[in-house]
Structure formats: C-alpha cells, structure tokens
C-alpha cells in the first residue's frame, strides 16, 4: 500500500501536525508499512459480529446534576503558556 503525498498533507492538516516537506516520503513509507500490517483485518469475515468498545459492556454512569468540583482556575492557569484576566491567551483569531 502506498499513501500519496496529497493524502499525507491532508492527514497532517486534520491532525494539526506540521510535516516538513523533506520528510514526507519517509512518513509516507512508514505509514504505509503500518497500514500493510493492519490491512490483514480486511480478510476477516466479520459478518454479524458485534463491535466491541468495552470488555464488560459497561455503560456510562449517570449521577445527580450537582456541583462536585470547586473552582481552581488560578491553579490551572498557573501552568498555562499565557493568560490574561483569567482567560487563556492564544494568537489573535479575528482581526
């Protein structure tokens, strides 16, 4: 299996990972070898087999809708790259 350059670029955009132009062929080759491995799945007859997402068939628990956590904004923002007035700062989005 071979992944085209265009497809790698699309994946990189979806995953928000910058891939240097010079490494695209290496990335493509490594991803292709992994996809060759997982392509063994295509040969399996899975007709009528239920997909499994949790080993114990557990479902999401519900709880009362009440406040259980205290506000720790200062502690959380103390480790942020940049904050201002209690907000997380990122580069300007809207001019």
């Amino acid at each position, binding site marked *: 299996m071979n992944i085209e350059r265009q497809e790698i670029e699309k*994946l990189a955009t979806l995953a928000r*990972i910058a891939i240097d132009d010079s490494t695209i062929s290496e990335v493509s080759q*490594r991803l292709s070898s992994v996809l060759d491995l997982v392509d063994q799945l295509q040969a399996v007859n899975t007709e009528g087999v239920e997909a499994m997402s949790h080993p114990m068939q557990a479902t999401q628990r519900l709880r009362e809708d009440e406040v259980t956590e205290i506000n720790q904004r200062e502690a959380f923002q103390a480790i942020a790259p940049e904050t201002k007035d209690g907000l997380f700062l990122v580069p300007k989005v809207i001019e």
Partner: protein
Amino acid sequence: MHNLTIAELIKGLQSKEFSSVELTQHFLDRIGSLNPAYNAVITVTAEQALKAAAEADARLAAGNAPALCGVPILHKDIFCTNGVRTSCGSKMLDNFIPPYNATVVENFEQAGAVVLGKTNMDEFAMGSSNETSFYGPVKNPWAPDCVPGGSSGGSAAAVAARLAPGATATDTGGSIRQPAALCGISGIKPTYGRVSRWGMVAFASSLDQGGPMARTAEDCALLLNCMASYDDKDSTCIDREVPDYTATLDGSVKGLRIGVPSEYFSEGLDAGIEKAVRAALANLEAQGAELVEISLPNSSLSVPAYYVIAPAEASANLSRFDGSRYGYRCENPKDLQDMYSRSRSEGFGKEVQRRILIGTYCLSAGYYDAYYGRAQQVRKLIQQDFDRAFESVDLIMGPTCPSPAFKFGAKSDDPVAMYLEDIYTVATNLAGLPGMSIPCGMADNKPVGLQIIGNYFDEARMLNVAHQYQQATDWHDLAPEGVAS
C-alpha cells in the same frame, strides 16, 4: 536493605529493625549513584520523600501505620503528581506540573508509601523499548547495550536494579508485562476497570490499565491491594469489591487447569524462551496443575486490530495537546493554526506523530468502517476466543514476549518489527483481561518472562499461582551483575 522484598521491608519497618528515613535515604543514595548508568528515574523527589518517611516513622511508632507505611516506591511518569513534574516521557509535557494527584498516587499516599520519584518511559507510553522517551533511553540492568522493554521500562529497570522495591506502571498493549519480562521482574496488568485511570495520562482509553511492578508476586499483591479501587472519577472503573490479594497466595495449585495456547508457541518464538516457559509449565504440572492444550485461533489478528484501535484512540486523546492551556507552546506562533501545528510537531516525537497520523487516517471520512469499525469487530472475535478457552481452563499461560531483550536500534527503524514485540500481550488488552509476567529462566543470559492470563477479575488466582511458582523456584531472586551487593 535493597535486596529485601516489600513484604520483608514491611516486617522490618514494623519491628523497628530500620526506620523509613533510613530506608528512604538508602534508596535515594542508590538512585544517586546507580541511576546515571540506567536512566530509569527522571525525577527524584528527595526532600518530599524524606519528609514523608519521617511522618511514616511517627505513625509506625504510634502503632497506627497503614499497609505500606514507610515503604519507598517509584511512580511511572504517566501518573499525575501534585506539584511534581509529570512529563509522560514527552517534550510536550516537560514543563507540566499537575495541580492534582492521580487516584493511584492518592491511594499510595493514603497507604503511607514514600514516593522516591518518577520513572522514565516511552513517550506517551507508545513504544516497546523505551527508545522514544524525550529523556533518552533506559538501559537494561541485565545488559546495558539492550533495551529494558517498554513502555514502563523505567519502572522495570528501576526495580531490577533495586533502586526501589516496587513501582507503578501502565499497560495498554503489554507495557507492564513486556518490560517486566525483559528486566526479570514481576508485574501484573489487572482487569480493565480494576484500577482507576483518573490522573493517568490517556493513551488509548479502552485499553489503558495501571498496575504494579515488583520483584515477587507477593509484593505485586501487596501493591495491588492499594492500587485497585473503585473511583467515581473514572467512568470506566468497575464497582466491585477489592479482595485482599495476599490472603489467597498460599493456596495449592493442585487441580488447577492451565490452558497452553498452541498459537503462542509457533513460528517466531525464540528457542531459549520456549525452553524456559515449557520448564515453568512442567514445574506447575509437577505441583499438581493440569496442562490443557487450547487454541486461540484469532491470535494473529490481535496486533493488526490493536494498531488500529490504539492509534485511533490516541489521536483523539492527544488532540488536547495544542499549546493553549498547558504543556509546550512553540515560539512566536504567527496565528492560531500555526500555534497548534508547530506546538504539536515540535512537542511530540516521531513515533507519537506517526501514531496520531495512523489514528487520524483510520478515523477519517471513508475509512472508519474499514478500519476502526472492523477492528472493533475483530476485538469481539478475540474476546470470544478467550471466553471459549475459559470454559475449560482456569488460567492461560505462555511466553510474555517472542525474544529476550534486544539491542538498542535493532527495531527502532522498523515500526512493524517493534509492534510485533507485543504479539503475545495485546490480546489481553483488547479483551480487557488481566495479564501478568513473572521471571521463569534465562535465554542468552537475559531474563525470560512467563505470561499468566486470567479470567476477568481473577487477579487473586493469578497471583496465587505466581507465588506458588516462586516458592518452588528462584528466578525472581536473580539479580543483574553488581546490583545485589
């Protein structure tokens, strides 16, 4: 003191043979002098450890000491520790100081354990060799030119080198059992949902499970007693009573039916490993267990299914690391998109990026059914294999890995060769079953691991058999050269 097991240390502390401060200082000194050669510990919390040890001594003196009071341990650097850097082996979290403790960390604190520091690991637990850590590879104490296994290679090497008597670890596809095997120690991955994942940095949420590493099964039982708990904060945690795992260690293995899957002894298995594992099975048979040949026909599909499910879940879990709220942010981002993509490509290592890309591919429009959907169906087939096997056997045993510890660089350029390291371990994660590895011999002068797979929540029986095996053998007592003295 470093040659004593946790069970022996507890006795020594309680009978005041030595104090926790003495013990803690002893291990801190060992970490100081020996760790530079292994790179197993990446953060040492000496000051906090000595303070906790002094408090433990006070409780021991007062006679109200909890189970692990004064016992020094190490935490894998994937468990959030309040005020202490939790890097997950990544540049992305090199500056991350959590404002809270993981439930597992909290449990050990309640039990009076003393935390010496944090152990090295493959970046975001993605690896089977510890070569992907931002902090450099861990060296195997048995053979310094070889890998310790991964991802919990730092915890395994630290326990093997007697830098701590026990350590926490996590296992998504074999990350407790494979390094335990390669470093000649014992480790157990409990049933999915047995140990809280809260505060444990997420890799693949439907597979990740924390568990202990130590030199003996008895010590693993002592640590698991503390580590396992029901936790409201982890929605996949199962509400089920935690038994005292030490209470049943002494039971006989007479009449126990041990399933031996033919698929785990096929092509690709190192001859020395097979010999050691067969000898271990013969030992248990001589103790009265019955060996039953079984088949797990879908075994060969477990690695392909795993390498769809784990990267897919990882790509979703790791989307939170974008340079906005914590962790690494690139210098001078020119706009928001640039900040996201450069923070991620500069903050994540190559293997992590590769898995995110694979996961993104498998989940992207047009491919979901062919990859993720199908892998989840194959997962069901693998679980059904185990369900059928457990109708006629109590436990399943085989090798933990196909070969002994390999040399640095031997597989790092070939992701598929590295992924096949997990060939005997990933199936239990996919099925959610508990798995364990204990030392059972040597091959090429390196340790061999015997894997024990149990039915759901059957950890007590696994630990019991492992303990009985260790009562009859002394592989778990072997130490790498220069470590025991």
